[in-house]
C-alpha cells in the first residue's frame, strides 16, 4: 500500500521539500508542513484521525517509530496535542503533530498498527489524560493504583502535590487461565541489589506461558521536574535518569539543544564525546557479560568480568573525575578538557583490559555447561523485534540491523566506520555474542578516536535559544537508541521534555521473550537484556 522506493540523495541534514522517496505520496494532502528550526527534520500538522493510517504507511515504507510526545498547549490558547516521530536511515526525521481537544482529548490509537507504541500510549494516557481510543491494553502503566483518578501530572494545571481521591480498581495482571495453570508473582522486591519490578508468570509446571511485567515503581516525575528549569539545571537531573546511560542521555539532550541553537560543538568536544560514549558502552557491555554469567551462577566468568569492569570504571574516573561519567557532557561541548596525563595513559590501560577481555570471553565460549544454558534460551524472533521496535544489542542479536551510530550518525560517528555485529538466533547466546563483539569493536573505535584527537577548545557558547522551538536529540547508548524531545520556553527554559530511553523501548521485548522458557531461566533472560528500570520509569 505504501511506496517503498528509497531516495539515495536524501541524506541526513538535507531537508527534503518535494520529497520523492514515498513520503510525499504517503502524506499527500493529509499533512501540512510546519516550520522547524533543526536541520534534517520534517514537521507536519495532521488530523488525529489520520494518525493510524499514516503511521502504518510509514511503517510499511521502512520508517521506524521513534517516540510519542504529549503536549499541553492550553496555556497558549490551543488544546492538547500529540506528536509522533519516525526515523529511517538516510532520511530526514519525520514529526507529525495532531492537535487534540482541550476538554476531552482523545485520538485513534496507533498501537494497533504500530505495537512499538503500546507503552507510549499507555504512558500518555496516565500522564496527560489523553485517551488513545481502541488501545488494546487500556490498563494504567506509569501511575499505579494509589494515584487518584483524574490526576494527570504532566498537565500544566495538575496540583503540585498528589491529591486525595478515589483511585482506580486494583491492578489486574494479564494471565493465562486453565486447569493446571498457576501464577507465580515475583518482586517488586528482589533478592540482590537490583531495581524494583513486578513479574507475574503464568506457568504450567516450570514452563512460562505468559509474563506480565509491571514497572514504574521508581517513577520520580523527572519530565515534570525539569519543566521551567534552565538548561544548566535540567541537565544534572536528566543525566541521572539512571546510573548507567549517563553519556547517552546527556549527549542526546545536548544534541537536541544544539540543534535548536543551530550550532555544533568544537571538533575536539565531539571527538571526546565519542570517546566517552564508547567508554560507557564498554563498561556496560563488560559488566553485562559478567551479569549474564552471574545469571547462571558461573562465578569464574562473573568475577573476571567484574574485575575488568572495575578497571574500566577507573579509566572513566581518571578522565572525568567520575566513574559513571556524570557532569562532563553539556550543551555546547564539554565542561572542560580531560587531563592530558590521564588521557595519555588510556591507550595502554585499555590494551590490558582488551587482552584480558579476550581471554575471559574465550574461556566462557569454551565452557559447554555455560553455552548449554545460553543457547535457545529467551528467544526474541526477528518478527517480534521488528514489531515491538526493539533497539540496541537485543535487536541486533535478533537479526535487526539498527544502530544510530550508523543509521543517524552525529558528531564523530559521521566519520567513523562502526562495524556491523550480526547474529540472528535472538537467544541469550546471541545477545552475549553481540555484546562481546561490540565491546571488542569499541576498543578499535577508541584506538581510532584517541589517535586522531584534534587540539583546540572543548566548548563554544551557544547562540540564544528561540522560545517555542523544539527538536529531537539522540544517541546510541549501551542499550540502544535514547531519544530526547525538547521544547524551549521563555528565558531559555525547558518547557517540555520527553526522554524515551532504550530500556523503555526494550522492556516489552523481555516479556515477549519469556514464554516457553523455564521460570528459573528468567533471571538469565532478564540479564541478557540488562535493561534499566530507572530511566524507563523516570
Amino acid at each position, binding site marked *: 500500500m505504501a511506496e517503498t522506493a528509497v531516495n539515495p540523495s536524501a541524506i541526513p541534514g538535507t531537508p527534503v521539500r518535494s520529497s520523492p522517496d514515498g513520503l510525499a505520496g504517503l502524506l499527500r494532502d493529509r499533512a501540512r508542513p510546519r516550520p522547524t528550526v533543526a536541520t534534517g527534520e520534517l514537521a507536519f500538522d495532521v488530523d488525529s484521525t489520520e494518525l493510524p493510517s499514516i503511521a502504518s504507511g510509514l511503517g510499511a515504507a521502512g520508517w521506524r517509530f521513534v517516540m510519542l510526545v504529549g503536549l499541553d498547549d492550553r496555556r497558549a490558547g490551543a488544546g492538547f496535542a500529540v506528536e509522533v516521530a519516525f526515523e529511517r536511515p538516510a532520511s530526514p526525521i519525520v514529526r507529525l503533530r495532531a492537535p487534540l481537544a482541550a476538554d476531552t482529548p482523545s485520538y485513534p490509537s496507533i498501537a494497533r498498527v504500530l505495537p512499538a507504541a503500546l507503552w507510549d500510549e499507555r504512558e500518555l494516557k496516565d500522564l496527560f489524560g489523553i485517551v488513545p481510543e481502541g488501545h488494546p491494553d487500556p490498563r494504567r502503566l506509569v501511575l499505579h493504583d494509589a494515584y487518584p483518578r483524574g490526576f494527570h501530572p504532566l498537565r500544566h494545571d495538575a496540583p503540585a502535590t498528589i491529591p486525595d481521591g478515589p483511585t482506580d480498581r486494583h491492578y489486574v495482571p494479564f494471565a493465562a487461565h486453565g486447569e493446571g495453570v498457576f501464577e507465580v508473582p515475583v518482586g517488586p522486591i528482589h533478592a540482590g541489589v537490583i531495581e524494583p519490578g513486578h513479574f507475574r508468570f503464568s506457568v504450567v509446571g516450570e514452563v512460562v506461558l505468559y509474563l506480565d511485567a509491571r514497572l514504574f515503581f521508581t517513577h520520580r516525575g523527572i519530565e515534570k521536574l525539569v519543566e521551567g528549569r534552565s538548561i*544548566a*539545571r535540567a*541537565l*544534572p*537531573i536528566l543525566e*541521572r535518569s539512571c546510573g548507567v546511560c549517563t553519556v547517552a542521555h546527556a549527549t542526546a539532550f545536548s544534541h537536541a539543544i544544539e540543534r535548536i541553537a543551530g550550532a555544533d560543538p568544537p571538533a575536539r568536544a565531539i571527538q571526546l564525546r565519542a570517546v566517552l560514549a564508547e567508554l560507557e558502552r564498554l563498561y556496560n557491555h563488560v559488566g553485562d557479560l559478567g551479569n549474564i554469567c552471574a545469571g547462571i551462577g558461573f562465578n*569464574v566468568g562473573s568475577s573476571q568480568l567484574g*574485575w575488568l569492569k*572495575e578497571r574500566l570504571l*577507573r579509566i572513566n*574516573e*581518571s578522565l*572525568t*573525575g*567520575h566513574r559513571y561519567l*556524570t*557532569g562532563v557532557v553539556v550543551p555546547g561541548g564539554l*565542561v*572542560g578538557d580531560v*587531563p592530558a596525563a*590521564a588521557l595519555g595513559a588510556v591507550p595502554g590501560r585499555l590494551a590490558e583490559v582488551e587482552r584480558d577481555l579476550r*581471554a575471559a570471553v574465550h*574461556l566462557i565460549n*569454551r565452557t559447554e555447561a555455560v553455552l548449554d544454558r545460553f543457547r535457545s534460551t529467551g528467544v526474541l524472533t526477528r518478527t517480534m523485534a521488528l514489531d515491538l521496535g526493539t533497539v540496541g544489542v537485543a535487536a541486533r542479536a535478533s537479526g535487526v540491523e539498527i544502530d544510530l551510530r550508523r543509521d543517524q550518525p552525529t558528531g564523530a560517528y559521521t566519520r567513523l566506520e562502526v562495524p556491523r555485529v550480526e547474529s540472528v538466533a535472538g537467544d541469550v547466546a546471541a545477545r552475549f555474542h553481540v555484546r562481546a563483539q561490540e565491546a571488542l569493536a569499541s576498543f578499535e573505535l577508541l584506538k581510532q578516536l584517541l589517535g586522531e584527537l584534534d587540539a583546540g577548545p572543548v566548548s563554544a557558547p551557544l547562540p540564544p535559544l528561540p522560545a517555542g522551538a523544539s527538536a529531537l536529540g539522540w544517541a546510541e547508548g549501551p542499550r540502544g537508541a535514547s531519544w530526547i524531545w525538547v521544547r524551549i520556553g521563555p528565558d531559555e527554559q525547558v518547557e517540555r521534555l520527553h526522554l524515551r530511553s532504550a530500556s523503555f523501548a526494550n522492556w516489552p521485548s523481555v516479556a515477549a521473550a519469556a514464554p516457553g522458557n523455564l521460570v528459573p531461566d528468567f533471571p538469565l533472560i532478564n540479564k541478557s537484556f540488562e535493561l534499566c528500570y530507572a530511566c524507563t520509569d523516570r
Partner: protein
Amino acid sequence: MDLLDRWLRPLRTGVVTSTYPKAPPVLEPGVRGLPELDPERCTRESACVSACPTGAIVLSAESWSLDAGRCVFCGACARACPTDAIALGSAVTIAAVRPAGLLHVTPLPARADR
C-alpha cells in the same frame, strides 16, 4: 589446557580487591570528591551558591556550608568561583549516621580581617 588455564590464571593475577574500609579507597587522581573551600581566598560573592544546581551551598557571614546530601559533585561551584577558592577534594567516604552529619561547615574569617 583450558582447565589448566582456569586454575592458573587466578594465581597469576593475584588479589585484585582492596581492603577498604581498613585501607582508604583506591582513587584515581582527579576524582571529583567533596567540594572544599579555602576560606582565605573566599570573597563571599556567592557565585557558588547561584551556580549550584541542587542548592547544596549556604553562605553566611560566619561560614560556608555544604550539604553533602544534596551535592551531586558536578563541580559547578568550583568553575563559578571567581577567586578559585573552591576545589573538588578527594573525600568520597561521606556517609553519615544522621542528616546533620552530612553538613560540612567551613568557618569564614571575620569580615574585619580583610
